[in-house]
């Protein structure tokens, strides 16, 4: 192994930051709305996330009663895919950096 003066130590720092940033999860939230049927929301949750009926029902009720529910916490790309799918089904979904 050869350590040269051009060893890119300073360059590695931002790369590390970027990796950490990429790995930080994003929360996917679904918001209540007056149009989507409860049974439809359950169906969509099962389709998109593969949830059991029980889990899908529980999350749907959370959306209905509390106005929103956290349905996934994933790396950015996966969160984006979920939001896109949910929007395709007409659900009001958003993503935000997990806190």
């Amino acid at each position: 192994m050869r350590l040269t003066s051009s060893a890119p130590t300073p360059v590695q720092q931002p790369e590390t930051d970027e990796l950490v940033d990429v790995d930080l999860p994003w929360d996917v939230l679904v918001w209540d709305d007056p149009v989507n049927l409860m049974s439809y929301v359950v169906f969509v949750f099962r389709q998109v996330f593969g949830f059991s009926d029980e889990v899908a029902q529980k999350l749907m009720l959370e959306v209905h009663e509390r106005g929103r529910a956290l349905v996934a916490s994933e790396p950015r790309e996966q969160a984006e895919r979920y939001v896109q799918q949910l929007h395709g089904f007409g659900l009001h979904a958003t993503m935000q950096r997990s806190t």
Partner: protein
Amino acid sequence: MSRTFRRHGRAIRATFGEGELELLRSLRDQLREALASPDPDDPVIKRLFPPAVLGDPEAEREMRALLVDDLLASRLAGLDALVGLLDRGTLHRGSVRIDLVDDEPMLVLGVLNDVRLAIGARIDIEALDRGSVTDDDPVSYRLALMDHLGWWQEQLLSIMGPGLDREIGTDLAAEDDPIGGPGEDRGDR
């Protein structure tokens, strides 16, 4: 009220009155028109393409750039496919019968939902107090329309079951177990 959608062997059979079919075509055409040249200030467009990212305007811009074109294209494709599907209907005793197979029930379910969302956006349903709507208010008709299409959605949902669009023809959506069956066994996920 007799059912509009029922299971029929491998298919889901839709039976529309001719008036219902005309209505569905007209609602489809209205949505197609709104999507053909989408106006960002149109409440229908706002509702069907809502903000995706909170707390990060740059990420929201990036996401919209990726998302909106895809979503728009798939919605337009769905609406166009619906026309072909409705044209396939055959007349039986004054009703139009269409057998839906493969991913077609899912397509119909999605269009019905988009149409209901669009009607809801037009009457600003988020701010609407249903109790204050009188029978002679045009909004009352729109609400009745949404309820009617919602009833169709409920019928479809009760016989589709999750993932059934890929497995239609099996009996896993028996009437007494509408969303049961081996739905967890999905290798494509």
